[in-house]
């Protein structure tokens, strides 16, 4: 019983972290602070995955999201913005419309979720060991994921090439253009 309430306390703590920091991410007027709050949200999500026993998923969340994407976002913030700058306040009309849309959407979705009667499965804990995940990723049998795995590897290659081509410095000097 004690361990159950401990799990529950950890769950509610991380829920509060996720909700508070995701609201702060979209309302903070300093861009670097917003990125830091986003990092906390992503770490809270990783904690959810660990709580649900998906340890591989949680590790991927930390390395890819918290370690990769947030660092990329912070670097691009440092390249493109002045850190001390504050955003201008949002206009009242736009604020009201956006708030109405998101509150209505959240209310409707929560209504559907709370009305639906989900029947939890009684099979037991999922087996999310790394061995099983690796076998499933490279298996072409039923429940194998080798096709999406290969497609994603192609997509990543395309993303690498595309990012390099787009962000490359153009030969903008006039001499270069004339020589060509």
């Amino acid at each position, binding site marked *: 019983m004690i361990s159950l309430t401990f799990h529950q306390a950890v769950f509610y703590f991380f829920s509060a972290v996720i909700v508070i920091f995701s609201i702060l991410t979209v309302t903070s007027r300093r861009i670097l602070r917003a990125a830091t709050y986003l990092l906390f949200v992503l770490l809270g*999500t990783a904690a959810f995955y660990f709580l649900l026993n998906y340890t591989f998923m949680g590790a991927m969340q930390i390395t890819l999201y918290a370690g990769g994407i947030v660092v990329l*976002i912070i670097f691009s913030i440092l390249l493109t913005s002045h850190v001390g700058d504050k955003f201008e306040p949002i206009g009242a009309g736009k604020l009201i419309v956006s708030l109405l849309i998101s509150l209505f959407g959240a209310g409707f979705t929560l209504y559907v979720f709370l009305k639906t009667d989900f029947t939890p499965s009684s099979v037991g804990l*999922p087996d999310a060991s790394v061995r099983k995940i690796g076998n499933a990723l490279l298996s072409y049998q039923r429940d194998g994921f080798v096709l999406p795995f290969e497609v994603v590897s192609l997509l990543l290659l395309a993303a690498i090439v595309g990012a390099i081509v787009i962000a490359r410095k153009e030969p903008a000097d006039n001499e270069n253009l004339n020589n060509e």
Partner: protein
Amino acid sequence: MWQDISLQDVLIVSTLMFFSGVYGFLTRRNLITMLMSVELMLNAVNINFVAFNYFLHPENMQGMFFALFVVVIAAAEASVAIAIIIGIYRRFKSINIEDVSKMKF
């Protein structure tokens, strides 16, 4: 299985996270903060996939694999988006979407 945490608890958290992402996407005028809002939404959907997998179909792994592929695609998307944002900044000296309206019809 825990008896004290229900699927609904997880779904409430992910719904609030998703719609704060929607709110940010609608109100932000800066390309990087809009990208961050999109990441929030993707993350909320990932939580949903994993939670449905865990609570409703623990014998299968489809939900977790879908979330895994979404994370990988989000990484690819973020890298290309940031390359584009840096290109836009070089050309327009600003990443505010009010200033980047050259392709607007």
